[in-house]
Every structure is written in structure tokens, then in C-alpha cells.
């Protein structure tokens, strides 16, 4: 039983270790840094899965509608 709890503890330490060290490693990549910067400025949620979870899909749709609508006039 003790071993099981020890395994759980070690797994949690590994998860926390990943959470706080991996992004630091990635920060050395210029492209990644710039993507993060843009996302923070524009309040993009990089982890959203479906279109309705991200506000920018609605904004992009409205902008394109205006741009394409002007063509039809």
C-alpha cells in the first residue's frame, strides 16, 4: 500500500516538475516567445479546442464579412 502512495507522490512531483521546467526550456525558442507575446497581447487562449471556445473566431468572421461585403457593393 505504501508503494502505491509513493508512486502517486512521485507522479505528482513529475507533473509539477514538467509544469514549471518545460516552459522555461521552450522560452529559449524565439518563435515560441513571440507566439506567447502575441497571444498575451490579443488575449488568445492557446489551449481552446473548438471554435466556440475562442473569441477570435467570431472577430475574424466579422472582419472577413465586412471585407468581402465591400467587394459586393
Amino acid at each position: 500500500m505504501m508503494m502505491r502512495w509513493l508512486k502517486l507522490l512521485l507522479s505528482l512531483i513529475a507533473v509539477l516538475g514538467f509544469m514549471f521546467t518545460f516552459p522555461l526550456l521552450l522560452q529559449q525558442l524565439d518563435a515560441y516567445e513571440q507566439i506567447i507575446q502575441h497571444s498575451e497581447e490579443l488575449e488568445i487562449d492557446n489551449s481552446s479546442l473548438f471554435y466556440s471556445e475562442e473569441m477570435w473566431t467570431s472577430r475574424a468572421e466579422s472582419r472577413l464579412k465586412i471585407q468581402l461585403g465591400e467587394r459586393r457593393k
Partner: protein
Amino acid sequence: MALNKKRSIFLTSEDYWAIWLGSFFLLAGIVVYLVVGRAEFGDKITQAEQIVSQESKSKNSISWYKANEQLEKLTGSNTSLGKEIKKLFSRPKSWKYNPVDAFYKPTVEPDESAKSKIVELERKLADLEAKAAMKESEQTVDVDTWLATKAELEKLAKETSQKGHSAIPGLVMLGVVLAMIFGVGAYFMGFKYFKFTVAFFGVFALAVISYFLAAQVDMKNLGVSYAVWAILIGLIISNTIGSPSWMKPAIQTEYYIKTGLVLLGAEILLSKIMAIGLPGIFVSWVVTPVVLVLTFWFGQKVLKIGSKTLNITISADMSVCGVSAAIATAAACNAKKEELTLAVGLSMVFTSIMMIVMPAFINAVGMPEVLGGAWIGGTIDATGAVVAAGAFLGDSALNVAATIKMIQNVLIGLIAFGVAFYWATKVEQTGNVRVGASEIWRRFPKFILGFLGASIIFSLLYYFTHPQFSYAFIDHGIIRGFAKDLRGWLFCLAFVSIGLSVNFKELKHQFSGGKPLILYVCGQSFNLMFTLLMAYLMFYIVFPEITELIK
């Protein structure tokens, strides 16, 4: 379970319960947003629309900007009831180093010097607006000054103050409400109501932890969503100390997934496919099915993957839109939990990699923004990563990428139906025996009808409602203010349940020989080439006039 024998299948099957509960939630959404919300905001929207149309000739007056801004804010989720519902479904908020921030943050007012600056800017804005209100002075008011002052005011207010929040009451309330509602279905399916609700709180608590970890800023930036955390937490528990036996009645993956999918149906609005005209349809609706079918064929004939359900789940997840498509397809063909876990894991890893590599590559080779955006939108799985990668390239790329992804998302309704039908008629067929309609009906996953029904009903509602009301009460009311949040919670509960019932050994067995990885890599490589070719043909050869307008 003995009770089940006396009850109709309409009350004992999780497929039907998914339809009943999904319909109940969506009907509640219609009442809250389309009836109550419209009564509150309907007149204000009409007034703002009138101002916009009156001022549309100049398009450069303060009242035109103010009316447009009002139209953006007058949405279903901003009505009194909409705000309360938003609070109920709220998740742990973003945090970086202090985990408490996820659940509680105090309100911070601006200090005295900032306050006086804010008052000064507000006075300046009011003066400009007063001048503009007098028709004769309208021409003399500098709209650019008004816009710059407004932007300065908003920036200052954002920098010097903090909006507080407290997520705990909402989370407790949500847990209680969901436990009670889902407990009813569980009772009819043969579970003890009290035992289910107690167990539900355990699974719900793990879902809250998943959302809490997903809200960590660095993880969010990397695109690691709640789905990954939910599976991981469940897996860690079940493979170390074991899933607690008291939690087992509420470990109901299909029950949550299928109800979530009926809600997802409402988010699939068919009219969205015309958002960017024909080029968008070709890039999203022609490439995607071709890639899906060829990848599935490659998996069966070349890689000889043992499980067809694993093959189609990975193929759909890679070619359509990642996790959401994987969930819908896996449910449609009754794939194993380990297979869905594997598909989700592959999608999340490759999404994070492609989000960084693709825009860097596009920039390095000097690819035009519109082409780059279309390429990103058609190939990266998750929407957030698509928008982030598009934003890196520029405004046009962001708009095209996000819209292409949205059009592709709409396809999952048809894909799920197609897969369910193919499985019921072909895959589950034994020998050369012809299958009758009743047998096909028996095999067919019924919740798909709820999924498609919701999509059709909401598409029609969206189409036939006045455009501004559709925007305010359907898109930014029922869908973005309610259904997507509830659906997110249900998927999260489902992923926790998957993790709690999957064994590492079984997962390892699914991955044997690395065939799923090879399938994903080969399929994605083909997807990358075909999407790029189609995007180039559509945006630069066949419809260059559209590209001219949006670049």
C-alpha cells in the same frame, strides 16, 4: 439493475438520456437567451442598429463607433440572467505562480493619481461626445482624437485596477446542480441516486483540478488543455492507488461524452461554412474528407492496424479538428477508451509542435499571409493553437486561419454521422449477410440523432433569426455563453472517467509497434501537402480577387 427490465429502453439507455438531457439544457438555453434575453436587450439592439445604419454613410462619426461598440456588448451572455449563468459555469481562472489566483482574486481599485487621470480622460471624452452630439459641430470633432482618448482610458483602467473574482461558490453550485440532474438519468439507468451523486462529487472534484492545472499560464500558452490534464490525473490515480470504489458509480464516460456531444451539435451552425466563400469550402470541406478517407485506408491496407476504431479515431482527429473530432468519432464507432486516449494524446503533442514550427517556417520562406493562414487553419488541430499561430503571422493570417478552422469544425457533424452509419452498415457486418433496416437501427448510436438534430435546429434558428439577434442571442448567448461551457465540463468529466478506467498496460498495448504514431505522422504529412496545394490553387489561381480583398 433489476429495475431496468421493467423500464423502456428510452429510460435505460445512456444514448437516449444524452438526448433528453442535451435537449433539456438546450431548451433552457433557448428560454434564457432567445426569450428572456431578447426581452431585455431586443429594443436596445434595434436602436443601436438604427444609429449604425443612419450613420453608415460617413462611417466616421463618434455615434457610429459608440453604436457599434454597443452592438458588440449587447449579447445574451451580458444580460442579467446570462451573467449569472456565466458565473455558474465559470472555471478556475488563469494563474502563474500563485495557485490561489485561480479561485480567488480581490478587486483592486486604481490609486489616487490613476483615478484623477481616469476622471480627466473621461471628462475629455464627454466633451468630445457633447460636441459631436450637436449636429453642426459633428464635422469639426476629430474622431481620431476621441478613439485615441478612449483607448488610453481603457488601457489605464486595465493597468491600474484588477477585477476580482471568487470561483468557489459557482463551482460548488455547479457540482450540486450537475450531480442532481445527472443523478436522475443514472437512477433510471439502474444506479442508486444517492450513491451516484456522492460519487459524482469525487469525479467533479478531479475535473475542477484538471481545469485548475489547465489554467496555469505557461501550460495554457503551450496549448495543454483540460482534456490532457483530466486524462493524466485519472491515469495517475488509477495506476497508482487505484480508482476509489466509492467513485465508480459516477465513472460514466459515455454518459457525459454523449450528452456533451448533443450540446456540441448546437455549436455546429451550417451557415458558418460560407464565412469566406468558396475558397474556404474547398480548403476545409474537400481536403478534410479526402485526407480522412486516405489516412484510414493507409492505416488498414499499408500499416495493417489491428483496430479499425483506433484507425478511424486517429484519422478523424488528425484530419478534422483534433480532440472534438476524436471524441465525436470515437463515440460514433464505439471506440475503446484507450484508443480515444491515444488519439487525444497524439493530437495535443503535435498541436503544440505545429503551433511553434509552422508560423516560424512560413515566415522563414516568406509565404504570403493569406496562404499561410489558410494552411495553418486547415492543418493544426486545435482552434486556440490555430489562432495563436495565425496571429504570429499577422492580422490577415489570423482572420483566414481562424475562419478556415471554424468551417472545418462544422464538418464534424457529418463525419460523426458518416462514421456511425458506415460502422452500423459495413464494419459490424459479419460475412456476406445483408443487414436489414431494423438491425442497422439497432446498431446505430442513437445519440448521433440528438447531435445532428441540435445542429439542424440551431442552424435553422440562426439562419431565420434577424442577423444581429442571431449574433447576440444564439452565437454569443446560447452557444458561447452557455452550451460550450457546459459541454466543456461534461467532456472534462468524461476524460477524468477515461483516465480512471484505463490501465497503462492496455494503453501500451495499443501503442505497440508505434503504428498509431506512424499513422498520425503520415496522415498529417499528406494533410500538410494537400492543404497547401488546395489553399494555393483556391486563393491565388481560382479566386485571386477574394485574396486581394482580405490580405
